[in-house]
């Protein structure tokens, strides 16, 4: 037996360093005392773990609103997750995820389709038992000189709920669809970070979140616009301080395309 050939064959299978970072970040959070099960998991969004954690927190909150005894949401290992580089794959993705997807090729403010990721997710009860598995979709839109804007989709979950949705900063009706806009401040902190009195007060005031797992303290503002369209929950996430009007316009373009 000539083992060298087999060793070479296995050597070609190797773990991506960025994926390792993401996994280690998730494992770090998983060991934090008092953390809820959702915090153990992050969405795989273009391998940007911290950004992913922010989306996870926001999406979990949106699911709370619709559901009942769902305690948390997070990533879940499922077959068929991965990245697509063309919107031509949308029919195939819709077949896989089981709900309709409306995704413009470009928005009028210049953000254009970059890529699309299908993620595995689940809703968990308070004992961390899976209540429902489902597919999420994250579509990235890019513009020169700007951070990527993502359009995040998940099915509307009708399970009973135990939580309340955070109040939006603004709400508008767009073509008959309620669009909720939030401007939230996120503080990304190392695993051993201890919340200050200022943190606790800001959290109590709302729209202020602490996400554990970064190497150093980073603070960012995130804007979200969320709405339900054709059985799916849409969340537009923007870190470019484009403002509420810009996000409402982007939401309007998705809604117009989906009606």
């Amino acid at each position, binding site marked *: 037996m000539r083992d060298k*050939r087999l060793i070479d064959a296995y050597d070609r299978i190797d773990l991506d360093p960025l994926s390792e970072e993401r996994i*280690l970040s998730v494992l770090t959070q*998983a060991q934090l005392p008092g953390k809820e099960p959702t915090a153990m998991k992050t969405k795989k969004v273009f391998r940007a773990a911290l950004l992913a954690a922010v989306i996870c927190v926001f999406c979990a909150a949106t699911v709370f609103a619709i559901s009942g005894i769902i305690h948390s949401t997070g990533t879940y*290992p499922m077959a068929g*997750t*991965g990245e697509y580089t063309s919107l031509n794959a949308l029919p195939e993705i819709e077949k*896989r995820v089981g709900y309709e997807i409306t995704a413009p090729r470009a928005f009028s403010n210049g953000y254009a389709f970059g890529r699309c990721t299908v993620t595995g997710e689940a809703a968990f009860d308070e004992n961390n038992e899976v209540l429902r598995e489902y597919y999420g979709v994250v579509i990235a839109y890019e513009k020169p000189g700007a951070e990527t804007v993502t359009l995040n989709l998940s099915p509307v979950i009708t399970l009973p709920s135990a939580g309340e949705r955070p109040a939006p900063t603004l709400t508008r009706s767009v073509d008959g669809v309620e669009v909720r806009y939030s401007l939230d401040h996120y503080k990304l902190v190392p*695993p051993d970070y201890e919340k200050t009195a200022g943190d606790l007060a800001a959290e109590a005031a709302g729209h202020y979140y602490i996400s554990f797992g970064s190497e150093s303290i980073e603070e960012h503002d995130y804007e979200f616009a969320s709405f339900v369209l054709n059985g799916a929950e849409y969340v537009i996430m923007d870190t470019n301080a484009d403002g509420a009007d810009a996000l409402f316009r982007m939401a309007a373009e998705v809604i117009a395309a989906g009606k």
Partner: protein
Amino acid sequence: MADLPTTGGRTVRDVYTQHARMLYRIAYTYMKNSCDSEDALQECFLRYIRSGVSFADPQHEKGWLILTLTNICRDMLRSRARRHDSLEDHAELTAAPPETDRLTAAVLALPDRYKAPLYLFYYEGYSVKEIAGMLHQPVNTVKTRLARARKLLKNEWEEQFDEG
């Protein structure tokens, strides 16, 4: 990144650093794509953290990780089957590792029961007895599976050697 907290006297980072590549390769032979293999690896270590299990020795720990990982992979594959998914329908999701040759493809195509023993024997260099202990299988079962895996790979091997 700060060191991960301690579990059972060793940090999870230590355990991860020691075993992640091995576990990822085993996962890849089951899942055949990087995204699912990464998910399986992550889930394996999450279960390791949650389990709180203590191990008699490093070999016991390694065996536990391999068994847990292969169970996760099988669950994921069953879940895939329940959905009647066909990976062939999703070429972008099933990209083989770069420079995949016919032997790698043949290894990936082996029946699942042969994958972990084959990898542990030929790549990691464990004895049949050690593998039997790790996978909780009789020694003769491991021997049989290795022999059958070799037989299945034989044609591919010979072709490669002829070309080489």
